[in-house]
């Protein structure tokens, strides 16, 4: 499980999650995700290369999202593959954090 970040215009932090966000993956990225979330206001979570998402992995997304939102920031989920999106929908996360498959529309959320 790999995490990489990219600073975009407008103070947006793009975080790319690559691999399996299962129990082991969640344990591997939690600290890094929390550090990132602690210092950014606009968080674009790029899920395009996420091949698996379980309930512990959902925690790794939700807890940083909560931290950003509590400080008045915004979070967007970008480009999950179909089955990962199904997990997000089954958990009702899609009604709380917007999911976008088009980058321009994802970035527009932060305007």
């Amino acid at each position, binding site marked *: 499980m790999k995490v990489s970040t990219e600073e975009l215009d407008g103070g947006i932090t793009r975080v790319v999650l690559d691999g*399996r966000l*299962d*129990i*082991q993956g969640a344990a591997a990225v939690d600290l890094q995700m929390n550090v990132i979330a602690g210092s950014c206001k606009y968080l674009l979570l790029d899920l395009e290369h996420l091949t*698996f*998402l*379980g*309930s*512990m992995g*959902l*925690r790794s997304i*939700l*807890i940083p*999202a*909560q931290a950003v*939102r*509590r400080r008045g920031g915004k*979070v967007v989920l970008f480009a999950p593959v*179909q*089955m990962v999106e*199904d*997990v997000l*929908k*089954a*958990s*009702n*996360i899609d*009604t*709380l*954090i917007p999911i976008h498959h088009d980058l321009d529309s994802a970035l527009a959320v932060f305007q």
Partner: protein
Amino acid sequence: MTSTVHWQSSSNLGHPVLVMPEANAQIAGTQLILRSRLEDLALVAPWLDSLAMAYDIPSKTRFAIDLCLEEALSNVIRHGYAGEPNQALTLDFSRDILKGLTFTIVDNAPHFTPPEQAKPTRMPSSVEDVKPGGLGIQLMKKFATTVNYEQLPGGNRLTLGFQVGTAKRADA
């Protein structure tokens, strides 16, 4: 190297007891034997890959199985065995033309609340309201075709069924 699970009658209760083999978790064809450690869950994905290849399991069904097994096995390890690291879990796979793909998890843990009786997780109204956790049973119910739980005299048996090609969609 192969590994077997031994069922034997306990002297006082007369019910089957799962005896952990000396070797650590090992893959033995359609059976996977794990110890009650979260790190042993890393063995499930490669085992599932080998089954998917051998039985031509479609990727969507494989994902659903992967998800349900992680939720079910981690529930047994974290809650059933309450963190005790050297207890046994067995995971068996079978395929039937009518029943589809079946995965059976047997453990020696105390009985737990059957999935069908588990309280549905309250849907939060905002991100801030979300209490991470408690989604495992909900995900199993949505992604498996069938979820059956049985109390054994000395443990639990959870059976997860998946129909190939008709994997339930989460938004269905």
